[in-house]
């Protein structure tokens, strides 16, 4: 899994490469948390939190999930330690992603002041061409 931040004058692009959808979602969750927290550690008290996001497509659901994570980071000062479980479903044109994360609580993040998560115009899809 590779997590990369590409910044721009007004915002930053969080890009993740992975071998499965689960790994990519994990990359986004850990990537966002680490970006906001910077090098700050938090107390060694692990808590487990469930989060979910939904929308008409996977991007929408991911943005919704990450927005909820950002809200928890800002209001409850939680830092993601690891991802425990991921489930996603598609029902009646609604994609849902539900995750369980292990998190710890800190004083407050000292990394980037991320205020919102939203859609990117970018789609990167890889295929293999056999030569």
């Amino acid at each position, binding site marked *: 899994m590779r997590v990369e*931040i590409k*910044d*721009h*004058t*007004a*915002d*930053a692009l969080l890009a993740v490469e992975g071998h499965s959808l689960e790994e990519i979602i994990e990359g986004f969750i850990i990537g966002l948390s680490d970006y906001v927290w910077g090098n700050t550690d938090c107390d060694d008290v692990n808590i487990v939190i469930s989060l979910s996001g939904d*929308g*008409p497509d996977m991007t*929408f659901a991911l*943005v*919704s999930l990450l*927005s909820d994570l950002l*809200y928890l980071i*800002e*209001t409850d*000062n939680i830092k993601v330690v690891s991802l425990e479980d991921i489930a996603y479903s598609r029902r009646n044109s609604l994609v849902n992603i539900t995750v369980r994360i292990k998190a710890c609580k800190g*004083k*407050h*993040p*000292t*990394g*980037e*002041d991320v*205020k*919102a*998560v*939203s*859609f990117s*115009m970018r789609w990167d899809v890889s295929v293999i061409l056999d030569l």
Partner: protein
Amino acid sequence: MKGLKELNKFVYEIPREGGMRVPARLYVSSRLLEAVEDGAITQLKNVATLPGIVKYAIGMPDIHWGYGFPIGGVAAFDVNDGVITPGGIGFDINCGVRLMLTPLTWSDLQSKLDRVLTAIFNSVPAGVGAESDLKLKRVDMERVLRFGARWAVENDMGLSEDLDRTENRGEMIEADPDEISGKAFDRGKKQLGTLGAGNHFIEIQVVEDIFMPDIARQWGLYADQVVVMIHTGSRGLGHQVATDWIKTVAYAMKKYGIKVPDPQLAAVPYSSKEGMAYFSAMAAAANFAWANRQIIMHRVRKAFVKTLGIAYDEMPLLYDVAHNIGKIEKHVVDGAEKLLVVHRKGATRAFPAGREELSDVYKETGHPVLIPGDMGSGSYVLVPTEKALEETFGSSAHGAGRVLSRRQALKRHKGTDIISQLEERGILVKSASKRTVAEEAPDAYKDVDEVVNVIDRVGIARKVSRQIPKGVVKG
């Protein structure tokens, strides 16, 4: 730049092509044009495709690539058949600037600058994670969202005349706290009266140049005067409102048959249930921002009273302007008066004399337009002209606009070096984070003088005064 038609030295047109319903216009000098990213031009063209847009999509001299809609962008849509797009207002709803006057000259303050700046820094929470000491109950928050700056004044955090000197009197009556989510309440309740981080600041400035002595005198501005500029917005509450409503609007868009070239420009008809509800939520967030700037100014005044012994009411507000907002305004389009939803994102309202929205204080002159620069350069006060109404829906530029990303600036600078360099130039900086200082280094921004000169030369607004920073508080 390809496809641009030069109308005159400072105005370029992008003719209609593809799905554009109207042309686009750029107000830039040839030097600023070189710095405009192709992405910002594409975004301006995308805005021109939105239903109900009138006249043209406008790019100000400080235009740069934003979320869907360029920062430094203005677009107006007919209320009857046009759209509203949260991307055209931005995440930091009612981010804006206010300028407070003092009765002091630089020589009165110079030896006490450190003391007063420290007092301000200690009384206004700043930086990532900084929390307000105001503990608001839900009912109080609802009143803030409904009444904006008036709530602060009624709670002894300002003077009643401050409201006459605030755009919209610091209160959009369309605000409806019921359209604000619980998450937005949660994010906002600890942040009222806080500065935030990033490009937000409190600056003690000194008036260096007066360009229009009569207007300056009328407004109480004079050379060598100490003034204070405050730049901040609606904090996490505004960002949460934007996040919530971008999602709602993106969902709803399909049922109205609206297709946009970029999902970040998700839009619904203004007159739809979702459009009106978003407008009410946006107005509530705007009110939160006006209350926020009012409370911060109250604390700045108290810091001056405490450290310098001057009276609280000797420090009038010159003006407070929003630069990320949507407004319902009447404008003349093709000879007929129309009611429009004007989106100003990174653009400042610029209403000349006579507009019905102006308070008596500015009925005869038009209201002051405030354009801040970076922390190493000047900021400006301008007076709008009729041309602003004719050409830009009564709008002007809002600032310098970034040229370097935060990371690029961090690679290039250390916060401590920037603080030392500014100190050598007589500018004292107090910041919650050295990193923020590096990110906000003066060379991370365009030349504000060039931006303002375009506005002045085009004649949208005229330069009244230029202030230089002496003391800066950053998050």
